[in-house]
């Protein structure tokens, strides 16, 4: 037993025994003696990574984060179970995922020879030819086939269908003759799809941006409130602190987004939504790319907001404007997704493009070059806002007391 292990449980006996915490026991090292050594150098990148790692570990250990992350994952999975269960009637997703049963085993149906129908196969239905009505009935009764198609009772009338205990809907649908219909004002079939996509992308963006953005701002205020920031800034440059906070928060936010997207992907694969998959796969990863850049922008702004106040109670008022920016794509895209012009504009505006552009990509309204251009615009905006946030952070994070005003934080000049 090492010294550290022995010292670790001094109150291991008697009452007041505490549950053992799981932690790594450090093995002690003697302090240096003799002359002081040259200081070891820690580069900017290494410092940034250390800060990011600490923030991530602290977040991953917090109960609130674990609960919200698990809830969101479960919500996505539940959504797919619901979609699967209600597929036929689920309007929009059902429609664009119309051939949902593509790969499902075809329904076996017996056909009496000479029934005179269906020389060609029907999608989703496997025909088994039988010689008599009796043979067909036996197969239906035994459950070997779902239903049987019998010859018309009188020539000139339609074929008859025999089922076991319920109406074989698939077959009846397949046999029904649909008249050609011409609509003078055809409804846009994708309208619902557009709505649902905007909703899903918008909500995901809002939740991720708000949750992780607030978390970053919170961490920043706590550092300021507990004054550890003074010790930290005596050790690492403020730029490394800010970069580490942005990096740590972004890795977590993007990581969870990727996880959710992957869960959705798995859900679609499991539900055989091949058509939907074909439509969504590429735009989903575009969404992740937009989110990655967009979140860095928000992370920088949230860090700056956190640095401007000294108490967590004051954080809400400082971060409200940024929260509104996070909500903007959700509200605007959801409200205006019917207007192609508005969508086109929003898909290039840096604050709304992370939601609007992926929706347009899904609907085939925008090409790759447009997505690249919008992403470049977003990246440029992100660079500008990161520079401004760095300025605010460095000018405010050591100013204790009342909230630092924005103009003052941007002009600054109190810190070296």
């Amino acid at each position, binding site marked *: 037993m090492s010294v550290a292990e022995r010292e670790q449980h001094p109150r291991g006996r008697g009452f007041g025994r505490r549950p053992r915490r799981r932690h790594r026991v450090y093995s002690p090292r003697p302090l240096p003696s003799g002359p002081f050594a040259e200081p070891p150098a820690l580069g900017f990148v290494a410092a940034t990574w250390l800060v990011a790692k600490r923030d991530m570990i602290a977040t991953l250990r917090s109960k609130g984060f674990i609960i919200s992350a698990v809830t969101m994952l479960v919500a996505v999975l539940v959504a797919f179970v619901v979609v699967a269960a209600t597929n036929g009637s689920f309007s929009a997703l059902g429609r664009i995922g119309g051939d949902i049963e593509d790969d499902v085993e075809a329904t076996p149906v017996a056909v009496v020879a000479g029934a005179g129908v269906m020389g060609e196969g029907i999608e989703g239905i496997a025909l088994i030819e039988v010689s008599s009505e009796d043979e067909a009935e036996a197969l239906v009764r035994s459950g070997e086939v779902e239903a049987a198609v019998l010859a018309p009772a009188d020539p000139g009338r339609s074929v008859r269908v025999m089922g076991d205990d319920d109406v074989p809907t698939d077959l009846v649908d397949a046999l029904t003759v649909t008249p050609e219909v011409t609509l003078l004002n055809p409804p846009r079939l994708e309208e619902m799809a557009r709505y649902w996509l905007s909703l899903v992308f918008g909500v995901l963006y809002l939740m991720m941006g708000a949750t992780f953005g607030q978390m970053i701002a919170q961490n920043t205020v706590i550092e300021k409130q*507990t004054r550890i920031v003074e010790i930290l*800034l005596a050790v690492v440059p403020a730029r490394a602190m800010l970069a580490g906070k942005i990096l740590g928060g972004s890795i977590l936010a993007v990581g969870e987004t990727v996880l959710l997207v992957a869960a959705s992907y798995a859900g679609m694969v499991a539900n055989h939504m091949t058509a939907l998959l074909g439509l969504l796969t590429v735009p989903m990863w575009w969404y992740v790319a937009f989110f990655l850049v967009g979140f860095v922008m928000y992370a920088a702004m949230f860090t700056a907001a956190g640095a401007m106040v000294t108490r967590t109670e004051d954080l809400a008022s400082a971060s409200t404007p940024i929260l509104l920016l996070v909500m903007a794509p959700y509200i605007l895209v959801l409200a205006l997704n019917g207007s192609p012009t508005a969508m086109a504009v929003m898909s290039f505006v840096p604050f709304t493009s992370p939601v609007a552009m992926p929706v347009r990509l899904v609907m085939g309204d925008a090409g790759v070059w447009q997505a690249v251009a919008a992403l470049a615009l977003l990246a440029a905006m992100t660079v500008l806002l990161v520079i401004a946030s760095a300025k605010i952070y460095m000018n405010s994070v050591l100013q204790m007391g009342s909230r630092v005003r924005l103009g003052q934080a941007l002009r600054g000049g109190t810190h070296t």
Partner: protein
Amino acid sequence: MLTVNGVTRAFGTIRALDGVTFAVPRGQMTGFVGANGAGKTTAMRIIMRVLAEDSGAVTLDGAPVTPTAARRFGYMPEERGLYPKMSTAEQVAYLGMLHGLDRQTAEGRAIELLRLLDLADRAYDPVEKLSLGNQQRAQIAAALVHDPDVLILDEPFSGLDPMAVESVMRLLGGFAARGAAVLFSSHQLDLVERITDTLVIIAGGRILASGSRADLIAAHTRPRFALETGGDLTWVTDREEASDVIVGPQGVTFHADDAGAGRILRLAVDRGPVTRFGPVVPRLAEVFRDVVGGDSLPPSERDVRP
């Protein structure tokens, strides 16, 4: 040697520091004393480069202290701060790693420092579960983990029990003995008196006195003598050799030159047996009172004990 040279800093219209100049020699403990709001914390923050001076300079061994150079210093700010939910050992090690130590070294030193500060049994508890005194020790460990050769400590002894004071003193003394420059502020003048070799006294943003403790005491106190006999001693008040006479329950103390003190002793012996006679070792509180003016001291520090 760390030197602060003519440093001035204003916050708005308030002059927090006004031409502050002093030196912190290596291999010694330097005490930084002054009333609340005198400018100690501002000076320390400027030395650490977390605050910029308006004019003046801070140098270490002749070279200007850049923010990069100051990163090497060990710093304990006035406002204590550690992550409340992180374990003590973990964050001391984290700070060590930010200073460029590899993980094993940082963790090993963290646990060793906590052991030397009698905090090993709480090392893996989150900081928020520690008492204030224990948080204070954790804070000291955080300032020392990277083996700094310059220590800037704002009130390192406040809130510590006498045993903790001893272990912190031993630890800091070890750093000084190896050649570190140690600057610490404190309001506990008797403690400062006991452990410092050099003193800096600040008031209203100006350095009123600085130098070796012995020199300061010699310069700012007058020789005093204590006399105790069985009988009444109020007659000393009337002697012209003695001035500033204080009559206490045990006897008297007075200021006089050596010859005058000898005459008074002879008079006392003539009147009866003398139980005690000797020079009063001046206390730092007196120096402080002389330099700063008694009004800025709390009453307990103003007592002049024979």
